[in-house]
C-alpha cells in the first residue's frame, strides 16, 4: 500500500516556545496526484511546509517530532538543499524572479548550462561561458510543458503577473529530479482567467507523474482541480477526504468549526440602535499585502464591530487607512462631517484612536517609559499634560506631576503588571504591552477605538484579559470599538456584528451566532454561491 505514496508525514508535531502549533499531523500524498491542503490562517499549513522544506526556522527552534517518508524511505530534511536534492520543489507566493533577466535566464538561474573555453580550462569552472542556445531550448520545453507559447527571451520586467507565476513554475519543473511540487497559494495574485490556466497547467504537471501539494483558500479551485483534500484547523489534521466526496459547505464547515465561548452572553439588540457613528464609502487603502479595494461599511454607535477575514484580504488595511498610516482614498463620514483622509493628526483630533497590530513597531516607543508611552500622543495632538514655563505660553514643558498621576491611574485601571510607571515598555510581556497601547488610546478619550489583532502574540490567559478589557471599555465608557482580528473565535466571542472582508471588499455581515459554514463560506468569498451548492 505504502509504495504508491510519494510523501507521507506521520504524527508530525511542532512546538514554538512551548506553544504547540502542530499536533500529530498525518498527510499522505500519492505520486502524480493533486493534493489540496486547506485551512484558516494559523492552522499550521506554513509550518508544515517549512518542515517539509527543512527551513532553518524549524531547526533553530528545536526541530519537530514525527516521521517523514519520501518515496518509501524515511528521510531527515535538514536544509532546503536536502529538500531540493530529494526532488521537492516549491512555487513561492512572492515571486523569486529577477526583473532585468530574460525568462530563460530566470528559469536557469544559478543552474546555467555552461561550456568550456580556453580561459576556463585554466581559471576553473567559474569562467565557463554560458551556453545560451541550450538554455533557451530547455526553457522553451519547460514552458511548452505548461502550455505556454511565449518568447523565452523576453525580459521578466513588463510581463503580466500571471506569466511570472508560470515562469516560476517552469523553473521548478526544469529541475530534472522533481517529484513533488508545493504550490503555496499560487492563485492569490492571479486574475480569474490566469488562475484557470494555472490550474490547467497543474493538471498537466501531475499527469507527468509529479505530485502536487496545493495550498489555497479558494475552495472552488480545490473542488475543481484536486484529487484529495486534507483539512487542517488549529494545528490538527481534522479531515481527509477524496474530492468526489466533498462539497463546498462541508469543507467550509470543517475549516472553521470550533466551539465558541462567548465572553458576553447577552447579544445586545443592535437592531434597536440605529444611530450611525461612522460611514465608510468606497474606501481604498494602499497597504501592501492588505489592500482595501473599495469598502462600504457603517459603524453603529456603541457597538463592538468585528472585522474578520483571511490574511491578505484587506481587513488590516481598513483601520490603518482611516487613521492615515497608509495612503487611502474614498469617503469617511463621522456623523455628518467628512473626515480628512491621509492625516493622522486630524483623525486623532476627531476622536478616533488606534491600537496597531504592529505593537512593537508602530504601537510603542520601546525604549521609553510606560508613562510617556501612555501620554505622548495626547501631548502631541491635544496639548495635554503640558504646563507653561514661567507663565509663557510659548514654552510648554511637560507636566511630570500630571503625567505620573494619570499613568498610575491607568496602570491601576487596566491592571498593567509592571515595576512602576518608569519601566521601559520593552521589558513588558506582550499582554502588558498591549494594555499600554490601549491606555494610550484611552488617554485620547476616543469615541471610536480601532483595535487591530489585539491578542496576537499574547499568551492565552492574557488574551482573555485584553478581550474583557475591551468589553468593559465598551460597556462602561460607551466607546464604540472596531476590532480587527484574524481569530474568528475571538471576534465571535465579544462582537455584536462581524463584517467579513474578502478581496478588499465587504463580503457580508454576520451575527456571532451564525453557523460555522456561513463564516467559512464568507471568508472564502463563496457566500453568494451557497444556494447553488
Amino acid at each position, binding site marked *: 500500500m505504502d509504495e504508491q505514496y510519494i510523501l507521507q508525514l506521520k504524527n508530525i508535531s511542532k512546538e514554538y516556545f512551548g506553544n504547540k502549533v502542530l499536533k500529530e499531523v498525518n498527510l499522505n500524498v500519492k505520486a502524480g496526484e493533486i493534493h489540496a491542503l486547506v485551512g484558516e490562517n494559523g492552522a499550521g499549513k506554513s509550518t508544515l511546509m517549512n518542515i517539509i522544506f527543512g527551513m532553518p526556522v524549524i531547526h533553530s527552534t528545536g526541530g519537530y517530532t514525527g516521521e517523514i517518508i519520501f518515496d518509501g524511505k524515511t528521510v531527515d530534511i535538514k536544509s532546503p*538543499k536536502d529538500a531540493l536534492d530529494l526532488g521537492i520543489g516549491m512555487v513561492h507566493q512572492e515571486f*523569486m*524572479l*529577477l*526583473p*532585468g*533577466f530574460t525568462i530563460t*535566464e530566470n528559469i536557469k*538561474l*544559478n543552474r*546555467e548550462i*555552461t561550456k568550456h*573555453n580556453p*580561459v*576556463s580550462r585554466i581559471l576553473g*569552472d*567559474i*569562467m*565557463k*561561458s*554560458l551556453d545560451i542556445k541550450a538554455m533557451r531550448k530547455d526553457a522553451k520545453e519547460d514552458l511548452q510543458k505548461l502550455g*505556454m*507559447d*511565449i*518568447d523565452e527571451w*523576453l525580459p521578466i520586467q*513588463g*510581463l503580466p503577473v500571471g*506569466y511570472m507565476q508560470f515562469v516560476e513554475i517552469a523553473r521548478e519543473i526544469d529541475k530534472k529530479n522533481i517529484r513533488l511540487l508545493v504550490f503555496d497559494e499560487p492563485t492569490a495574485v492571479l486574475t480569474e482567467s490566469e488562475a484557470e490556466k494555472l490550474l490547467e497547467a497543474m493538471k498537466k504537471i501531475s499527469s507527468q507523474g509529479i505530485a502536487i501539494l496545493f495550498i489555497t483558500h479558494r475552495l472552488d479551485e480545490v473542488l475543481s482541480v484536486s484529487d484529495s483534500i486534507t483539512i487542517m484547523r488549529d494545528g490538527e489534521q481534522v479531515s481527509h477526504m477524496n474530492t468526489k466526496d466533498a462539497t463546498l459547505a462541508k469543507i467550509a464547515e470543517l475549516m472553521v468549526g470550533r466551539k465558541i465561548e462567548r465572553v458576553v452572553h447577552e447579544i445586545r439588540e443592535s437592531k434597536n440602535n440605529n444611530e450611525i457613528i461612522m460611514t465608510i464609502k468606497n474606501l481604498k487603502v*494602499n497597504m*501592501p499585502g492588505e*489592500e482595501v479595494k473599495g469598502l462600504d461599511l457603517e459603524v453603529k454607535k456603541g457597538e463592538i464591530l468585528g472585522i474578520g477575514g483571511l490574511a491578505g484580504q484587506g481587513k488590516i488595511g481598513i483601520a490603518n487607512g482611516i487613521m492615515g498610516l497608509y*495612503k487611502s482614498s474614498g469617503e469617511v463620514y463621522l456623523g455628518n462631517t467628512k473626515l480628512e483622509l491621509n492625516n493622522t493628526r486630524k483623525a486623532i483630533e476627531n476622536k478616533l484612536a488606534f491600537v496597531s497590530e504592529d505593537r512593537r513597531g508602530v504601537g510603542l516607543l520601546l525604549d521609553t517609559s510606560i508613562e510617556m508611552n501612555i501620554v505622548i500622543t495626547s501631548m502631541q495632538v491635544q496639548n495635554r499634560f503640558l504646563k507653561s514655563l514661567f507663565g509663557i505660553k510659548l514654552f510648554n514643558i511637560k507636566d511630570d506631576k500630571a503625567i505620573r498621576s494619570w499613568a498610575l491611574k491607568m496602570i491601576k485601571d487596566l491592571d498593567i503588571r509592571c515595576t512602576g510607571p518608569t519601566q521601559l515598555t520593552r521589558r513588558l510581556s506582550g499582554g502588558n504591552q498591549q494594555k499600554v497601547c490601549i491606555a494610550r488610546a484611552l488617554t485620547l478619550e476616543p469615541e471610536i477605538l480601532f483595535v487591530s489583532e489585539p491578542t496576537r502574540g499574547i499568551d492565552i490567559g492574557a488574551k482573555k484579559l485584553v478581550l474583557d478589557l475591551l468589553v468593559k471599555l465598551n460597556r462602561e465608557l460607551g466607546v464604540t470599538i472596531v476590532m480587527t482580528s484574524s481569530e474568528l473565535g475571538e471576534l465571535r466571542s465579544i462582537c455584536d456584528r462581524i463584517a467579513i472582508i474578502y478581496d478588499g471588499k465587504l463580503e457580508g455581515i454576520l451575527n456571532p451566532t451564525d453557523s460555522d459554514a456561513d463564516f467559512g463560506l464568507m471568508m472564502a468569498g463563496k457566500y453568494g454561491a451557497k444556494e447553488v451548492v
Partner: protein
Amino acid sequence: MNTQIDISKRKQTSKISFMNILANYSVPILFVIICMLGIYASKLNMTYILNEIVIRLSRNLFLVLALIIPVMAGMGLNFAIVIGAMAGQIGLIAIKVLDMGGFTGFLMALLISTPFALLFGYGTGQILNKTKGKEMITGLMLGYFANGLYQLVFLTFMGTIIPVNNPEIILSGGVGLKNALDLKFIQYSLDNLIKLDIAGVKIPVVTILFILVLCFVLRFVIKTKLGQDFRALGQDINIAEVSGINTNKTRLIAITISTVLAAWGQIIFLQNIGTLNTYNSHEQVGMFAIAALLVGGASVTKATIGQAVVGTLLFHTLFIVSPFAGKNLFGDAQIGEYFRSFIAYGVIALSLVLHAWQKYMKEHNKEKLG
C-alpha cells in the same frame, strides 16, 4: 499568447521611444551640448583638441573601465578604486627605488602592484560585505582611511623602518618620500612604443591596444558564469542568495578585479603624466573616474563599456576647453577652472540625486498602480 505580448511591447516602445531616448540619454546629450559650446567659445583649433582628447582617453579610460564590474554586481560606484590607485603607486615607487626604467620598468611596476592590489581588494571586499547597501559611502570613507595609512607608510616609515637611501626621492631629513617623484625614466614607455601620426593627431597605439584588450576581457567576463552571477547580484541580492549563488564570494571577486584594474590604470595614467605627486596623485582618481562614467549616462545600477568611453570623451573634452573658454568669455582662465571642478562634483551629485529620484518615482508609481 506570444503575439499579444510582442505587440503590446512594440506599441509601448514606439509610442514613447523619442521621450525614452531623451530620458535615457539626457545626461550625455546635455554634456554634448555643453562641450560644443565650450569648443566654440575656446576658439582652439581641432587638431589641438583631438590630440588632447586622444592623450586623455588613453590616459584615463582604463581607470574608468575599472568601475564597471562593481556597478554590475550591484555594489554601486566603487569609490574605493583610490585604494587600487595607491597599489599602483606602490609599484611605481618600487621601480623608482630599484631604478628600472623604460618598458621593462613599466611591466615591473604592473607586476609589483598586483599582489598589493589583490590584497587591498580582498580587504575592501571583506569590509563592503559587512556594509551591504552602503557600499558607496563606505568605499569613499575607506579611501580616506587608506590615505592615512599610505601617508604613515611613505612619510614616516620610508628611511626608518624601510631602509631607503636615495637622496633623489627621500626628503632632506632622511625620513619620508618627497612630495613629487620624477617618473621621466618611464614616461611614455607605453605610449611611445608605437606611435602613429594621422593628420597631425598622434596616437599611442599600444596604450589603446591595452584598453581594447581590457574591453574584450570585460565583455568576455560578462558572458561567463561569473558574469551572470554578477548580473544576478546586481538585480536582487536576496533572490541571488536564495538560488544558491555565493553572494559574498562573488562580491569579493568583483571588488578585487576592480581594485587590480585601478592599480594598473593608475600606472598607465602616471607613465603618461611623468610625475608622481606622492601624496596627491591618487586622491582625485575616484572622483574623476566616477564623474566621467556618470557623464556617459551610467548610473549607480547600470554601466556599460560604451558609457565609459563616451563619458571619458565628453568629460575630458570639457576639461580641455573650459580654461580657454573661461579666458575668452570672462577674461580669466581661473573661472573656467572653477567651472570644471564645479562640473566634476556637480555631475556626481546630480547623478546620485537623479538615481534616488528615479527610485522614488518607481515606488511611487507602483503605489499608484496598486
